[in-house]
């Protein structure tokens, strides 16, 4: 079987899996504020938690195009479940693959793949969001070991994670560490009352005099932001870009289905041109978003250096249109769209989150405008 056929078959199977095992329960997960452990185990058994990893680490070896499609399939069914892929595979897994030493890769990647260990990426802090270079979580050398002190906040899957990829600073050196949850001095506190990602076990983490060995350092000391954070966020943005497509696609389908069955003024509402206008815009935006993701995917596959900016553009656009499409889907549903008996209510809430995580839309705009000011300056050509 060709690589393309093999990967296509995995996506087809994932569609069925999502339809049977995830989508029917998405509202329940959202309302209960938790993703069941059995689902995580089932996803691990299918290889989805290591979808892009090499086979030697238990992965499915999906290339960026198919990994993106998998993210869309899972994300369309449930955002919190998709967030598990974003964290395990993209943010932590890919970063370990890129900057982990042999021992770290051999130890952690198969555990992630088998779902035996859940990971979380701990960058954001109570007072540090977009200004990520200025983290305040401290590390100090103590002989051959490191001591970590500080707090992290809004960390997806932190409440059930077994280990954390933590970004900390020592004077002007920002470094990355792998810290196990059962280390002395690590505690977590779940965060409730969230707009979205309610089943993604988001929590605050406190590190109090946590003593870790020198083997816990990921990448070079001082390379925590430049290499580790930038790698993680690039992969995270790629995942979120597809998450936007997923929400938009789910919203389009909900909008169309409802417009075809709902009657007002004696006829189905899809006959009304203002409804058709919203459907047309939603379809166009969703197709455009997917095209941007596929372009970024091809660049990533080719290891083109412009893959980073194309990923940023895709993330910015898809998160923006996901919210617009989900908003119009609510509008088409009218009063029903404001009720949690219909999925568009959840999609609308989840879409807003995408404009904030892995770099706000405003940070993406700064990056994209800087790129545009260089790239499209006519007198240079």
């Amino acid at each position: 079987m060709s690589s393309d056929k093999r990967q296509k078959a995995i996506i087809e199977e994932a569609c069925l899996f999502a339809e049977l095992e995830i989508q029917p329960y998405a509202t329940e997960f959202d309302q209960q504020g938790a993703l069941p452990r059995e689902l995580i185990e089932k996803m691990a058994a299918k290889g989805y938690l290591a979808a892009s990893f090499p086979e030697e680490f238990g992965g499915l070896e999906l290339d960026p195009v198919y990994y993106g499609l998998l993210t869309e399939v899972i994300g369309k069914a449930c955002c919190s479940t998709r967030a598990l892929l974003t964290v395990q595979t993209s943010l932590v897994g890919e970063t370990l693959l890129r900057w982990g030493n042999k021992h770290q890769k051999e130890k952690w990647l198969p555990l992630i793949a088998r779902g035996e260990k859940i990971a979380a990426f701990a960058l954001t802090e109570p007072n540090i969001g977009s200004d990520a270079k200025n983290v305040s979580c401290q590390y100090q050398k103590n002989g051959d070991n490191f001591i970590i002190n500080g707090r992290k906040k809004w960390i997806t899957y932190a409440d059930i994670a077994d280990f954390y990829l933590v970004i900390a600073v020592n004077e002007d050196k920002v470094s990355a560490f792998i810290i196990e949850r059962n280390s002395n001095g690590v505690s977590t506190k779940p965060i409730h009352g969230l707009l979205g990602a309610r089943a993604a076990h988001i929590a605050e983490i406190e590190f109090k005099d946590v003593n870790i060995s020198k083997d816990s350092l990921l990448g070079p000391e001082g390379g925590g932001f430049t290499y580790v954070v930038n790698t993680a966020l690039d992969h995270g943005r790629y995942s979120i870009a597809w998450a936007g497509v997923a929400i938009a696609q789910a919203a389009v389908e909900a909008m169309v289905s409802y417009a075809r069955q709902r009657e007002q003024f004696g006829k189905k509402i899809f006959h009304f041109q203002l409804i058709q206008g919203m459907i047309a815009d939603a379809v166009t935006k969703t197709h455009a978003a997917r095209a941007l993701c596929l372009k970024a995917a091809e660049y990533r596959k080719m290891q083109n250096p412009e893959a980073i900016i194309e990923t940023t553009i895709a993330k910015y656009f898809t998160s923006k249109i996901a919210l617009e499409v989900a908003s119009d889907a609510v509008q088409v549903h009218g009063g029903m769209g404001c009720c949690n008996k219909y999925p568009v209510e959840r999609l609308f809430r989840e879409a807003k989150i995408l404009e904030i995580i892995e770099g706000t839309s405003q940070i993406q705009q700064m990056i994209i405008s800087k790129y545009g000011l260089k790239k499209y300056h006519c007198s240079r050509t």
Partner: protein
Amino acid sequence: MNPIDKIRFFIKENMAIINDDAILNDTDNIFEQGFVDSMFAMQLVNFVESEFDIKVENEDLDINNFNSVRNISLFIERKQHI
């Protein structure tokens, strides 16, 4: 285009500063002089790997390997001769 020209061209294309009069010398420290920002470092690593068919490892991540056109060129030469 020879390797050093490729590197110079790539950095110029991706300079963070919007200034048509900026002059980039081969020995200028591109990070300290603000020609590029820290986000560019990953882009540079990807460029070096894909363009020159080498693998940048953890131990290569010394900033001195990447902080000027000349040092990047010397680093690539060293890696290609390993």
